């Protein structure tokens, strides 16, 4: 780790001000990605601005049709929330399977989506559920939030405050884990509301995305069989020592099929 200044703030305004006055500042939430990166000397922020003291960013609220999760809410809290378990059970289950207990007790939803790791779980849910990412500046539709590998629509001094997930009729997330890291080699989140089906895919490509072809096939025929005929473009898939592009393309279909089955 290189030297840096540590600042703990108690409001979003202070966080933004601290960021604006820093040379090369970074927000830190759970630190589960930020700190290992710094320890490996791959990141060297001048200032680390800790969002942990901002009470307003923590917590879960539910109204008639949305679940709103504060940016600093940990994966463990989402997993354990009886309200989320009832409103969108697939989301609670997703959170409960991220990393290990230590990671779940520190890592946050805001940190996870701001980081936009190509193999992270939450992005699939944000996309499939048509969530809205709320920041100190604006509201960003989930479809537009993830812009590339480790890239998002966020500005440097923009703080995620919460993520709002609309409730749906049925949803399921199926994750094929990397045997080493246990991140997603492929994760598919399927959400169905009325006749509309949305599919969010993570792990398969450099950035989580909507499975438009799968959605087209499932709209009107919400069945595992409908998935069979869909062609997944192999050339767009990630390829690494754990899974080739061809295998990933195959897994996208298997995970989608299983998610659809789990919704039925």
């Amino acid at each position, binding site marked *: *780790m*290189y*030297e840096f200044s540590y600042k703990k703030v108690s409001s979003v305004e202070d966080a933004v001000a601290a960021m604006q006055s820093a040379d090369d500042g970074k927000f830190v939430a759970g630190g589960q990605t930020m700190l290992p990166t710094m320890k*490996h*000397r791959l990141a060297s922020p001048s200032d680390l601005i800790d969002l942990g003291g901002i009470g307003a960013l923590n917590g879960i609220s539910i109204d008639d049709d949305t679940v709103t999760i504060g940016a600093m809410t940990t994966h463990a809290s989402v997993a354990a929330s009886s309200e989320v378990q009832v409103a969108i059970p697939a989301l609670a289950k997703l959170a409960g399977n991220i990393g290990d207990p230590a990671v779940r007790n520190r890592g946050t939803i805001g940190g996870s989506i701001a980081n936009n790791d190509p193999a992270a779980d939450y992005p699939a849910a944000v996309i499939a559920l048509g969530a809205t990412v709320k920041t100190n500046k604006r509201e960003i539709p989930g479809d537009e939030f993830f812009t590339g590998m480790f890239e998002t629509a966020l500005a440097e001094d923009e703080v995620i405050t919460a993520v709002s997930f609309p409730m749906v009729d049925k949803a399921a997330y199926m994750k*094929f884990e*990397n*045997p*080493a*890291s246990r*991140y997603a080699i492929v994760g598919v989140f399927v959400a169905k509301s009325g006749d509309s089906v949305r599919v969010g895919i993570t792990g398969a490509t450099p950035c989580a995305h909507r499975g438009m072809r799968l959605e087209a096939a499932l709209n009107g025929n919400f069945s595992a069989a409908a998935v069979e005929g869909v062609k997944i473009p192999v050339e767009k898939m990630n390829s690494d*020592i*754990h*899974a*080739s592009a061809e*295998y990933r393309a*195959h*897994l996208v279909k*298997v995970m989608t099929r299983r998610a659809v089955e789990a919704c039925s």
Partner: protein
Amino acid sequence: MAENGVGASVRRKEDNRFLIGKGNYTDDITIAGQTHAVFLRSPHAHATINSIDTIAASAAPGVVAIFTGDDLAADGIGPLICGVTVTSDDGQPHRAPVHPALAQGKVNYVGDHVAVVIAESLSQAKDAAELVEVDYGVLPAVTNTATAADEGQTQIHEVAPGNLCFNWPFGDKAAVEEVFTAAHKVSSLELINNRMVTNPMEPRAAIADYNAGTEEITLHLTTQNPHVHRLVLSAFNQLAPEHKLRVVGPDVGGGFGAKIFIYAEELVVGWACRKVNRPVKWTADRTEAFLSDAHGRDHVSTAEMAMDENGKFLALRVMTRANLGAYLSTFGTMVPSYLYAFLLAGQYSTPLIYSEVKAVFTNTAPVDASRGAGRPEATFLLERLVDVCAADMGLDPVEIRRRNFIPVEAFPYQTPVVQCYDSGDYHAALDKALVLANYGSFAARAEEAKSRGKRRGIGLSSYVEACGIAPSAAVGQLGGGVGLWESAQVRFNPTGNVQVFTGTHSHGQGHETTFAQLVTEQLGVPFGNIEVIHGDTAKTQFGMGTYGSRSLAVGGVAISKACEKLIAKGKKIAAHALEAAEGDIEFADGNFTVAGTDKAMSIEAVAFNAYVPHSYPEGLEPGFDENAFFDPLNFSFPAGTHICEVEVDPDTGEVEIIKYSAVDDFGKLINPMIVAGQVHGGIAHGVGQALLEGCRYDSEGQLITASYMDYAMPRADNLPSFDIDYAPTDPPDNPLGVKGCGEAGAIGAPPAVINAIVNALGVKHIDMPATPETVWRAAQSV
């Protein structure tokens, strides 16, 4: 049986200190005035070093010193050595390139040591290391085991043309050839034994302190064998005379072989503490552990078996290419030769065996012993081949094994490959394992799985291994540079409690408990009054350390011999005190008695008498403290049958181990709980190799599995609850009747798992690690 004696599952004494945070690991040690060392490592797999500029780095805050290979050479320190000579087919000893502890003009793998930066703090040392400027001339890298010795490959070392360390044929080639030509059937298989990173939980570390007054260096480090470290560092690396070097292996958090070897960092830190006249400390981070711990396995082989019409094995032929990495590690040459080819008979009476091992250099980390060391490679090859033989002959894998097992009445059994097996009853272990695994009703379970779209498979592995390393004479004949006896000292204090000094080293095995059980059984002293001490050359008289499952089979016997000496001496003392003839004194349960009378004297009273010899046998030395050395007559040959049942999801290639049954012969068990722990851990290690662990370099020699993000270790949810049992035999050569148990699981498991997957899919072979994609592809192919 004494309370807490032999056969009791006594809870481990040492666990209390570990659980309450009172363990004392190398990195826990802080010495006043200590400095911190950071090793600058090569980012290239193969490069010349044109220059090293340390000017800016030396001026960085907190820097105490920066040393390079030239500084070591100027002081005549090093190079690192390989302790076992293998003779190549040209009659010459294996090619041994110079292995400097800090590079001299060239680096040969990613992670190779270029310079050491010593600073007041770790951060300062890291900061300064980034300022060292090295001008590299990058060369093409050689990384592929199978092709490293092929023509046209880049040469790594001048002394090793064709990147060949040795070509070592063993056996009668022509006789084997003849049998193959005439055989009813020949089955063959090409297979890879995947490279592994050993991954003890505690990374390597060292802290060295020089006392200018006594001129003694004290080196605390993560070692499995402190005396071996002292011997090599002193005799071969010129660190300090043996009597001026103290090596301590305090609590060590796992070794699995990786902490046997004498590493560059240990030598450099030991030397540097005198140079800077300050204590110097180094602890590897996890990336360094991946890059620079010696790796294991890494073979590419062809195996062929000639059979008669009944599936009887007539001859075996094995061609292996073994990767030794960039340099020879301490025992690197021994692993793919003597520890491998001499195990190729397995449990079978195959009369003729010919093997040829080509050991090659590559631009990868040195390869050396890792749990099992050579025997897992032999076992995987053989037990896979036997299943192929069964398929080719239309026989059940159980039946072909039964037809070829060495029969119980043939023991001790001289194999055609040097080893003479001590004892074994292979049929008994197999029979028991079949029952434990419900082998007979497998077909019904496979049917049921099919109805769920899954494929079930069952696989056996009947392994034998050679451990209890080793008879010194055998080691010498084979080109080893050391004797592999073990030593012990058992000392009564005047107050009657006992200190047991062993030359073995516990880094998780529970010696403090097991050895105390031996002593309480033999001497009758309460278990709680016995302390086992190890790991410090200044405390323990001598020793060769712990590896090759030798601690109990060799070190335990040394302890027992020392106890026998105490009893013999005690008889003299008791005879004098009890006014009886020495020949009338009997010893049992901690008491010396005069035969046929009620006259008795406890061993504690005898000990007191020996230290306070007011009335004492004439001419007898005072004191109650005995030393013993034990050199085993033979290796010890644990064996057994492991059966694995898997369910494969053909859609994704995921493999679930449904049931794992193991029946082993470890001779007599001293502490069954500890043995079960070793079996569990060993199987987990083997399952890791079979399903998860694959160390991979890319063609440029970058280690692409250099963290747990990419290197998959086995976790609890990869494993079932194991069903284990024993089919013990009594090894005639071992005075305690024990065999080693620490490596058996890692040796037996990989072929059991792979045989099960192959059985599930109906394919001929699948390479390890059988990752989901590998299995999925195999499932598509049928």
